[in-house]
């Protein structure tokens, strides 16, 4: 009986020592779930001795709320989407990057630099990007019949569509089909887009955002919206799937590295971003995740099939049709939200 307390004490001490050790030379990354392969972080630790803590979030709003609620959050690097880069830089939450430390900057694809959300890339370095397009199952649907967003409204696809459960993406789709830009803030146009979406509801089978590959792989829906990376992942398990860039245009999203203004390890953060800009590292990540890399020299290192894959690396001609999602002002955002809720209730 007497030995139990000793065992228990030793056990607890052991747990404490494994958990509560403090390492000064660290880097804290707050990033989308599954967005940074562990091996890559490990390699960085091996080369520099900097320990990497990876904490993950599942959407921009969650990340933003957490950072806003804390003064000294302790995070160094985060990876927001383009419109959150814009919002956070306007609110002074981001550090002006020291480009002298980023010697690998020249590897980046110029098509993704100096965009409206961060005109001189003072705050953000593009990491991964993709598009929102149409996915179809060629076993059930003829490729020739689907070339534009407008085709979603065809009565033939009654109760067959899958739409992304993402307000911005769905409104972008509707606005584009009406011939308006995706960042439109004209109230009339947004209302029009809403009424058009309402007409689409009989065709919609499901709204989803977290199980998109499953839905297309298991053929629960034959046609619908998808992010390019999800389509790439789905194709690996169902070869009948095809990705289509709609002719009215499509949204491009870019997730970028930014450094928090009061980052405790800003120097390590610059080192890490520079490390991630190496072509061979960027290539490994793109291959592992199925999403496009912003590193043009990384593309050259890929196998020829991947280089020419229109999902992973669309040509300049296709890219010209794409538009980047920008931040909406609060009034427009509320309008979007109002119509989005109405749309979901009607469903």
């Amino acid at each position, binding site marked *: 009986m007497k030995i139990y307390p000793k065992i228990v004490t030793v056990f607890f001490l052991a747990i404490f020592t494994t*958990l*509560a050790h403090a390492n000064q030379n660290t880097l804290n990354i707050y990033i989308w*779930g599954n967005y940074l392969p562990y091996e890559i972080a490990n390699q960085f630790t091996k080369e520099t001795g900097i320990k990497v803590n990876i904490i993950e979030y599942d959407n921009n709003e969650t990340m933003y709320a957490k950072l806003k609620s804390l003064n000294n959050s*302790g995070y160094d690097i985060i990876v927001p989407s383009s419109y959150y880069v814009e919002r956070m830089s306007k609110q002074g939450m981001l550090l002006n990057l020291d480009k002298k430390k980023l010697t690998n900057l020249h590897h980046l694809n110029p098509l993704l630099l100096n965009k409206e959300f961060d005109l001189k890339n003072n705050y953000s370095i593009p990491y991964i990007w993709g598009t929102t397009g149409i996915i179809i199952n060629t076993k059930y649907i003829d490729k020739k019949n689907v070339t534009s967003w407008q085709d979603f409204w065809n009565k033939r696809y009654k109760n067959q569509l899958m739409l992304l459960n993402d307000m911005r993406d769905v409104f972008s789709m509707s606005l584009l089909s009406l011939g308006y830009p995706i960042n439109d803030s004209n109230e009339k146009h947004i209302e029009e887009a809403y009424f058009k979406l309402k007409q689409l509801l009989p065709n919609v089978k499901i709204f989803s955002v*977290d199980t998109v590959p*499953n839905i297309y792989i298991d053929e629960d829906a034959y046609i619908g919206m998808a992010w390019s990376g999800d389509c790439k992942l789905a194709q690996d*398990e169902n070869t009948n799937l095809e990705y289509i860039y709609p002719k009215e245009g499509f949204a491009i999203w870019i997730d970028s590295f930014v450094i928090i203004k009061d980052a405790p390890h800003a120097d390590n953060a610059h080192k890490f971003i520079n490390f991630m800009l190496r072509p061979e590292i960027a290539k490994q990540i793109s291959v592992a995740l199925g999403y496009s890399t912003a590193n043009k020299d990384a593309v050259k290192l890929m196998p020829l099939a991947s280089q020419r894959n229109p999902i992973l690396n669309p040509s300049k001609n296709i890219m010209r049709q794409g538009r980047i999602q920008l931040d909406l002002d609060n009034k427009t955002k509320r309008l979007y939200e109002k119509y989005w809720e109405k749309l979901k209730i009607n469903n």
Partner: protein
Amino acid sequence: MSKFIRNFYTSCVYIFLYLPIAVVIIFSFNNAKHSLVWQGFTLKWYAVLFHDTALLQVAWNSLALAILAASIATAIGTLISVSLFRYRFFGKKILHALIFILILTPEIVMAISLLLLYSFLKIPLGFWTLLLAHTALCIPFVAVTIYSRITTLDTAIFEAALDLGANDLTIFHKIILPLLFPAIVSGWLLSFILSLDDVIISYFVSGPTFNILPLKIYSMVRLGVKPEVNALCTLMLLFTLFAVIASYQSIFKKKLK
């Protein structure tokens, strides 16, 4: 006929409770990365899991945190319920009520208030803030579990012990603890599970240096939960099952004696 209806009803309830768990276990053996259709049996995901040091580290963090929080909460909760039962002091009724109110408080309220507190005191978020929060979450549950058991005890035992010259410490050690042992174990298990699967409070009070499993799984949802998570959940389920069986056996054996 009525027997059939009764059995049918019972089976429905149990199927409803256990089917989702069964699905997780079955899909941990499914030979497909994303598909939710059966593609053949494989043990691949278990192999992947044991090579995924990041996921295992996070799982270990969660387990260790749960063990620590449950143990501290059980120690404090036991003392609370014993003192509420044994002693008279000023404000006892209010303290008693406050414990119950904590159980009914929505977790989100506790989460926000803890976050505000930490932010006000400038405590960096991480392991310690999580441990404190989880302990605070578990204490009322332990106190209530043990209190409901302690009220069934015969107070004459304590008087007899006092008569025979035992002091408070001896009574606590020799009488109360052994009698309450089953309740303490169930209080500990309850706390362990509460801490292990807590998302809401953890989400607010976790920091950049310490990640735990529920948050990791939650953040994976958007880009697809990997099948190895199913494997991990299956293993954890087995682990909990063994813990429950072992604790119940030890309690029942004691009772038989």
